[in-house]
């Protein structure tokens, strides 16, 4: 059990640091996981040098989806947007520190998908963004 619902995840789920909505913002995107109705919205502010000045996520869903969103936002603040574009599936899994089956993987990666669709300025998110 310990490997799976590590205290870290329960912690970020119950006490997220970056839950909220930035208004005004420079980047805004949201999407669902159709499987379970998980929903993630991401808002970011970008500074003059192209770095993420601040970020928030909002949404609802399982502990994995919400905790990974919180961990992800935490990890990108202060980073160049160009670096955010390069984030991979593995980066999120490293943040979570657990192994996941294919279904829960979608929960874990929803925030990444939303984030990358946002920073790329796409009208739609896509599985290709998290490969």
């Amino acid at each position: 059990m310990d490997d799976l619902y590590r205290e870290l995840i329960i912690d970020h789920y119950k006490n997220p640091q970056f839950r909220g909505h930035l208004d005004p913002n420079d980047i805004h995107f949201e999407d669902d996981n159709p499987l379970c109705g998980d929903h993630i919205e991401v808002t970011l502010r970008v500074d003059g040098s192209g770095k993420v000045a601040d970020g928030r996520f909002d949404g609802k869903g399982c502990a994995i989806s919400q905790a990974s969103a919180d961990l992800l936002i935490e990890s990108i603040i202060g980073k160049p947007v160009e670096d955010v574009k390069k984030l991979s599936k593995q980066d999120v899994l490293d943040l979570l520190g657990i192994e996941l089956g294919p279904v829960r993987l979608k929960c874990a990666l929803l925030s990444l998908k939303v984030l990358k669709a946002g920073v790329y300025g796409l009208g739609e998110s896509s599985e290709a963004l998290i490969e």
Partner: protein
Amino acid sequence: MTLDVNLLRQDFPILSREVRPGIPLVYLDSTATSQKPRPVLEAMEAFYRTNNANIHRGVHTLAEEATAMYEQAREKVAQFINAPSAEQIIFTRNATESINLVAYTWARANLKAGDRIILTEMEHHSNMVPWIMLATERGVELEFIPVTPDGLLDLDVYRTLLTRSPKLVAVSGMSNVLGTINPIAEIVRLAHAAGAITLVDGAQSVPHLPVDVQALGVDFLAFSAHKMLGPSGIGALYGRHDLLEKMPPFMGGGDMIKTVHLRSFAPNDIPHKYEAGTPAIAEAVGFGAAVDYLNKLGMQAVAAHEHEIVNYALDRLEEIPGVKVFGPTADKKGGVASFTLEGVHPHDIAQILDRDGVAIRAGHHCAQPLHEKFGITATARASFYVYSLPQEVDALVNGIYKVKEIFG
């Protein structure tokens, strides 16, 4: 007659699997798909090892044996739901295809813009999306029998909807989320009185309850083998004889034709008219064996066993603080218990239970509109079948207490 569950479990090889070393499987996901008893697996295996050939067109011994076995399976399935004749059973891939077949053939030949179809708010996507597609394409109107807070169909509203001359009433025999057993005989009687054709999504009712199409009077009935101890890859559509005779074909190809010329063809007789190309032959044999197995148990006994186990499950679940079970009381439902646990997403419940080998499902169970109606996005669902034991309900309940501890 009651089921000797401990004995029959020995027929299901997967039930002695350990999910992880030392953790036996507690399979509470039969509404999604059932496990398969040895006789079903053996029937298919024996077919491939002894009789395998393509059917209907062959003169050689194997082809004749395979054809006879395929058609015998059709007979068995027909008898299982008391169809007047075997040619009223069309083999499809699954209940979903059965419903789409009706939408693409009967409905597209008979419905036009402004015509009304009555569905219910508790339908599975399989009995919803084909009609949404038709509505979008043709301007047909969809109307919905509401679900009451305790998970029943509001028949008063249904009666009102019927006054507007619907052409079709399409409703599930049993909800895969609420477990509600709908009063099909009455729904059909009222529909017919209003001049509507009826389609019953029997994906859950046929595996779990005695179903007699003649007694119910249904015009179309759709179901899947994989939910009733049979293999994946095969389902069935029952249809009223005159409707099947008159409907245009669905897919074109081998076997569904009498004659083909370069620019014209004549369709075959029913049921072949609706079975284009090489069908799921071994799967039909397995479907037949599954029906034999259920007949041996007796569908009354199957229903009684599930009733008993869901009754126990509801009692135990409702005693857990924070658990909310959806759907009617046990006397009105089949072996399904969908629930939420305050503060914990169903996905997390399912995943934590899985660590102890308890397999339940979490999500919208292909009934998103129903979940919307209840203001939720997902439920956790435990579901039961002939092989389910009260101890498995206990394992579920213990697991839920563990979840509560973790999310504390």
